[in-house]
């Protein structure tokens, strides 16, 4: 029972941390949703430990805690994959921006030179 209470507190801390991050606009809602769903599942399992035993029995795993570990590992792999994908997309996005600003730099330079030339011509005319 003490262990259960411990896990419950840990999960509540997780939920609060996620909510604070969202409130301070440090985390996008879609990532917050991911963590909140995970917290929700943990809370359910803490409150109804029998559920885990039943699930383990249903899929044929003898020690219920192994099912818990398995689920945790699968979930973490999923999160890591998702983050890698998000990071790759961000890398591509910054690339596109960098290309665009670099091209724009050259265009601005060319336009500036042209304006300067035109101004000089104007000044030479009396």
């Amino acid at each position, binding site marked *: 029972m003490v262990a259960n209470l411990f896990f419950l507190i840990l999960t509540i801390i997780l939920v609060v941390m996620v909510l604070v991050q969202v409130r301070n606009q440090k985390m996008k809602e879609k990532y917050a949703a991911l963590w909140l769903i995970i917290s929700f599942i943990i809370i359910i399992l803490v409150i109804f430990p029998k559920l885990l035993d039943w699930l383990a029995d249903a899929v044929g795993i003898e020690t219920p805690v192994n099912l818990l570990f398995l689920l945790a590992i699968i979930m973490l792999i999923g999160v890591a994959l998702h983050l890698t994908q998000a990071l790759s997309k961000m890398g*591509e996005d910054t*690339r596109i921006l*960098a*290309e*665009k*600003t*670099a*091209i724009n*730099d*050259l265009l601005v330079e*060319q*336009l500036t030179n*042209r304006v300067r030339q035109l101004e000089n011509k104007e000044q030479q005319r009396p």
Partner: protein
Amino acid sequence: MQVSSVAHGEPRTLIIMPAWNEEEVIGGTITELFRMMPEVDLLVVNDGSSDNTSAIAREAGALVIDLPYNMGIGGALRTGYKYARMMDYDRAIQVDADGQHDPKGIRTVLAGLDDVDISIGSRFAEADNYTVKGPRKWAMVLLAWMFSSISGKKFTDATSGFRAANRRAIAQYCEHLPAEYLGDCIDACVMAIRAGLTVKQVPVEMRERQAGTPSSNPWKSAVYLVRSIFSFAISMTRKKSTVKDS
């Protein structure tokens, strides 16, 4: 805006020269190029060099785009092609900054565009005074064979960076040019072929690099072999893209 070779009915051509820390050689390469083709529009894409590449290229009379950080050859090339598309060029050709590509070959490679969309100037086709050995050679032979089989044209070296593109190919490159090394030559080309563009190889002579060390140690070459096969295999599984005809 510097616009040359307009309205003579002749196609407007942009030379794209990606450069990363090439201060020792780029001045010479540009000077030689302008001596041979004074009218041409040359764009140097400085790929986040930490040396004087950008200033030297400007001084030599090239247009220079400075990328804010090093993005790899693919990023530099895509930037060049995007500029070509934006400025409405008819043709673009990529030339190495290290002087490996003889300016005499530029017309030959461009002439290849008369009947195809992408023309690749390669070393092993007839004119040859350049030798490669070991895993790097195997990679070249294997890739050449793979390219020949999907394009229906004969290839002896598909990895050459001396290649020209017409409007269709420029549009294709703007959308699909991966940043990774090798992505630029293999992946991009496979995707172009699968999008229905035509490619052929044109024989040109290659010179030794004027400075710097060519990557020819066996370990690197082996990695190169594996990566190029991977790159090819991945792009074969990708969904075919379509080019908008402009």
